[in-house]
């Protein structure tokens, strides 16, 4: 009986919480991993795009825009910004001698600017948007907050759609072709430049979407991206840079580990454990659990 109660009141909520975080983490990590897999760019400003998504919920929500409309609107609003960043910043240094380092530096600078712009507009204090779907249901004695449940469903749906696009459509095969061999793809008529901008915008849009979805659960503040992106980096490393399946598996795994481990050890220690796992993976299996997009 005690065991049942333990599962019902302690374990199940933690698993559910881990799932919620995991889905959001996967969305952010997917954007990161797709951008790395295709463009070979480590986007250090990814966390800030996630924060911008969350702040769009605050800003546009205050103007009376419906939350559900924002789920569609936020990623679309990011497209021009993302394309501008890709065209005018990343592409400028893309063909330089040390692409990894320079693109990392440029996006790092961008992250600094974006974080401070958010601070300038919204102030440094945390915001908390209203929960668009309050209430909870009880199934088998386990409490399911409606919004979290919905987040998991929506997130899982989006992840499936992305996998379908990348692996089963013509657009996806063009993206994979461009990732595998840029010049060959271009000579076969793939509009590589467009694909690059589009992919970057797509990855950034995913980050913004995750920001919108998580805003009602977590507080929204300018440096929120920084904390979250570290986790997303670990997911990308452990799953394998550029691997979609890897991001999903590693995202669920890491979120559950950090969620469940807080039952047994002090929650402050989950961070070092997650990063420690990341270090071990980098040392012994830098390609991660699964291979790279377009290379497997």
């Amino acid at each position: 009986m005690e065991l049942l109660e333990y599962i019902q009141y302690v374990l199940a909520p933690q698993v559910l919480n881990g799932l919620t975080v995991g889905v959001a983490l996967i969305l952010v990590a997917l954007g990161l991993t797709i951008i790395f897999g295709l463009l070979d760019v480590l986007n250090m400003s990814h966390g800030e795009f996630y924060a911008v998504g969350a702040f769009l919920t605050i800003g546009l929500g205050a103007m009376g825009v419906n939350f559900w409309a924002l789920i569609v609107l936020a990623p679309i609003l990011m497209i021009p910004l993302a394309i501008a960043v890709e065209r005018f910043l990343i592409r400028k240094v893309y063909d330089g001698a040390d692409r990894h380092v320079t693109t990392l530096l440029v996006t790092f600078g961008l992250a600094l600017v974006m974080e401070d712009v958010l601070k300038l507009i919204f102030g440094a204090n945390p915001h908390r948007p209203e929960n668009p779907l309050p209430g909870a249901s009880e199934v088998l004695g386990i409490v399911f907050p409606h919004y979290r449940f919905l987040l998991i469903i929506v997130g899982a749906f989006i992840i499936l759609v992305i996998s379908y696009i990348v692996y089963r459509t013509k657009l996806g095969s063009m993206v994979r072709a461009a990732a595998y061999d840029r010049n060959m793809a271009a000579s076969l008529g793939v509009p590589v430049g467009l694909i690059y901008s589009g992919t970057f915008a797509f990855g950034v849009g995913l980050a913004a979407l995750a920001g919108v979805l998580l805003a009602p659960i977590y507080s929204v503040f300018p440096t929120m991206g920084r904390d979250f992106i570290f986790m997303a980096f670990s997911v990308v490393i452990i799953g394998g840079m550029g691997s979609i399946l890897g991001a999903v598996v590693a995202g669920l795994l890491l979120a559950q580990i950090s969620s469940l481990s807080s039952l047994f050890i002090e929650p402050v220690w989950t961070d070092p454990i997650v990063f420690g796992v990341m270090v071990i993976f980098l040392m012994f299996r830098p390609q991660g659990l699964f291979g790279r997009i377009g290379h497997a």
Partner: protein
Amino acid sequence: MHDRITQTFRGSHVLTAVLVAAALAFMLVGIANNDTFYLRLGTEALIFAGLALSVDLLLGYTGLLSLGQAMYFGIGAYVSAVVLIHTQSFWLAMSASLGASLLAAIVGGIIANQVRGVYFALITFALAQVVAKVIYNTQSLGSSDGLIGIPVVDVNLGVAAISTSSPAGFFLAVLTIIIGLYGLTAWLLNTPFGRVLIALKANERRVPFLGYSVWRARLAAYVLAGAIAGISGALYPMLRGFVSPELLFFSTSGNALIAVILGGVGTLAGALYGSIILIVLKSVISTYTTHHLIVIGSLFIALVLFVPQGLTGYVRPYIVAWLERRSTRRSNDQKPSMPTAVVLKRDSS
């Protein structure tokens, strides 16, 4: 006739000499005005210049981007703080910090050396995060508050002693140590060992064919950089009287990186200039607005895009050319020298 690398080092030495002269003038003005604030700020800039120097040694000469150099800075600072609290000995604190950061850098270097390129950046970043979080969670190290109340000590020089609480005295001590680190690094890079490091950046695959171990050279560079960061970090608690986990966070590593890009990658002198410019920029902008990151971030992006060689990297070729002309004039009748135009063109690492 010297070869090109020696020439560029001489260019850096001229720039550093200018910096030292400016620093001494600054100190004299500070003493004359009985200033504390600016001298302390200047000392802090020099301490972080040491951290930037270690980043430049890795990025500018060996081609390794470390995103976690603050780890060794922080380890140096914490060890120094603990030793100072217990013994009040400057030299003991410095040697303990050096030992600890050397040890940490050997372990960290063996771990980080498993991987290359972007993975190296990430593994150094993750390592620093692990250590930072462990310190953050350790009660005996003051957890998130850090250690406060580090006593004022004397830098015992045998014939004289400088108190760390004396603004000008400690400024001079820090300046000596940081310039010493600069000199040591520049000297090492100009030895055959240094040439191997530079070769690593140019083409890592060819180095083994010349009979050198890539692994050993990379590890040596990493350990050296860790020790430089550790020594610089050891000075921090003497200046500020406290240490906090923020010293190990990514923002500290990021600032050092900004300083190096600002000053010029692969010049060593640029790391010193960059840190000082960064601190000056921050305090000037802060008088107008709290949002200095917008300005610094934009400046940083613009530099990476348009002036990737940084400030000293931009100036140095002219100094090298000037040194060249001068030495040619001296040995005028002996042999024809390399044309300066070639030197100018090739000096853009």
